């Protein structure tokens, strides 16, 4: 209904993605024993058109599970338990879990998703050029020649010789394959790009080229991008806003500069303070305690067992994610966090 009433300018300003109260759990049954890993627990967020949103957090905190669920790319044992994911493509609402058929059609045309470790998804028995033909070319209204030209200049920007198109995946290095999957997801310039750890296998020089390419696609095409990485320097370089995930929950979100300069959650403050700097041999202060077990998460605020600021309420009550300053934070002591 809203769709019909929206004026063109409203369409443009409406967020491209709205995630509401999303819960997605791995539900398993081992020899009759039910187990549940609450990897995405009550996440609410919106992404604006043309925005680059970075998701950060430690290993196993649920970053991949979250964006997999947003991309509609989950399979058992991961299941959506509650909540919704809605995209707005060209003024039409696409409710990912209410309309799986349309979601499937939107893949590649409106949305591309680069999975974690996706350098291993290229078909091992086919030359890589076929992947470009199947996924990108089919969704673009370009002639063969123009497509080829676009592709070649695209590859060259991230340091790949166009001859790689004639190779089989096993003939390429890990970083070359990772760059190919990024090229695959960006060459057709989709409205929405979701990328999970897209630069982990690259040297720092090539990584910069890839980040510049992503930024360029966003700027020229107005694409919206969510990307996940535990590398805070990558967030510093290209994210407009950052969301910090801890134990399946979004604990802080805000404009990149503000998050770096004035972290509001004690966990974020720790992340920023412990960034390694080359030439610095000091041992870093590690967080005390162990990363939480998501099948038996701590009560109250999930960070409380490791938090230097924890008080009684933190042990029993989960702090809601509330607007504070330019961002949102879920912490009972948000006002008292010292900047690093």
């Amino acid at each position, binding site marked *: 209904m809203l769709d019909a009433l929206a004026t063109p300018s409203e369409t443009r300003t409406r967020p491209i993605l709205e995630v509401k109260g999303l819960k997605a759990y*791995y539900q398993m049954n081992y020899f009759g024993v039910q187990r549940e*890993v609450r990897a995405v627990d009550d996440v609410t967020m919106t992404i604006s058109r043309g925005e680059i949103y970075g998701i950060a957090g*430690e*290993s*196993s905190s649920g970053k991949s599970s979250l964006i997999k669920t947003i991309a509609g790319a989950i399979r058992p044992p991961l299941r959506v338990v509650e909540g919704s994911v809605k995209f707005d493509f060209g003024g039409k609402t696409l409710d990912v879990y209410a309309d799986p058929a349309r979601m499937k059609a939107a893949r590649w045309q409106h949305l591309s998703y680069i999975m974690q*470790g996706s350098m*291993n998804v290229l078909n091992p028995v086919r030359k890589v050029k076929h992947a470009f033909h199947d996924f990108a070319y089919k969704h673009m209204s370009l002639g063969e020649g123009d497509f080829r030209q*676009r592709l070649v*200049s*695209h590859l060259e*920007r991230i*340091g790949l010789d166009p*001859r790689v198109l*004639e*190779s089989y995946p096993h*003939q*390429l*290095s*890990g*970083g*070359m394959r990772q*760059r190919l999957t990024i090229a695959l997801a960006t*060459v057709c310039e989709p409205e929405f790009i979701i990328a999970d750890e897209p630069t*982990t*296998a*690259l*040297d*720092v*020089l090539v*990584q*910069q*080229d890839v*980040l*510049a*390419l992503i*930024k*360029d696609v966003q700027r020229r095409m107005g694409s919206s991008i969510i990307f996940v990485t*535990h*590398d*805070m*320097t*990558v967030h*510093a*370089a*290209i994210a407009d806003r950052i969301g910090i995930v801890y134990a399946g929950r979004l604990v802080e979100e805000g404009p990149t*500069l503000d998050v*770096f300069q004035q972290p509001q959650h004690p966990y974020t403050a720790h992340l*920023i303070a*412990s*960034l*390694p*700097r*080359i030439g610095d*041999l000091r041992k*870093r202060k*590690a*967080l005390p305690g162990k*990363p939480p*077990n998501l*099948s038996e998460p701590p009560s109250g605020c999930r960070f409380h067992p490791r938090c230097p600021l924890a008080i009684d309420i933190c042990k029993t009550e989960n702090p809601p994610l509330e607007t504070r300053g330019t961002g949102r934070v879920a912490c009972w002591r948000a006002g008292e966090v010292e900047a690093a």
Partner: protein
Amino acid sequence: MTPLLELNGVNKDYSIGGFLDRSTLHAVKDVSFKLESDKPEIFTIVGESGSGKTTTARMILGNETPTSGTLRFMGQDIAAIRSRADRLKFMARAQPIFQNPFEAFNPLTTLDYYLFSTARRFLGLKSRAEVEAAADRSLQHVGLSLTEVRGRYSHELSGGQLQRIAVARALIPGPKLIVADEPVSMVDASLRMSIVNLFRDLRDNLGVSIIYITHDLSTAFYISDRVIIMYRGEVVESGDAKTVLGSPTHAYSRALRNAVLPPDPIAARAIIEAKLADANLAGPAGA
């Protein structure tokens, strides 16, 4: 004394391209280095993506043969190891660790199974008690124990714990050398530190040498004894890690060092903007 590992003028060529435009790719060019057997060290390889690091590692592990040059492990020509028995003996001494701890273990198999089967295969152990003792001993070296790991599946543990278990498994045969190809790229900064600190403990307490391949210059600087920098198949700079990474002299190594993104949004953004400006001068992509 016979060196632990000695590479002498090692080259690896691949023939690439189609039927008509076949050409030769020099993946590794004239690489030589030596690890002494009485001086365990962390020997790090950094360099450009596609510069031949993994290919070098594969040759050291005997999974690929050089086009020319020799690789010797404890005096033996690695490419000449033929019989199954010799191969097993070699593998017991030189163990790999891979990039993705989540892929190294099948999600449907319990982790202790991997440790037990390694103990049976390499140590020839038969009785359950012996096998378990061997698994527990190597888990202790990485700060874990069999009680913590028994019956657990890979997804129940963190990436850092899994990578520790991968190291524990590699330790079971009592290796002299561990070849770790990007062992920390999939894990966060604090787990990275715990894994490289573990490498240091293995070097100091067990006398194991480690070939550490990485793109992470800060852990490389922090942990390495010596480092080589590879660019287009060649070693362009080598030596003491603090010197080479602290004040590199070759143009590529300098560029690499200067390209490390600063953990500061204003400075990091400026770098990406400069890249973008360069790329657009060179010709707009796709336009």
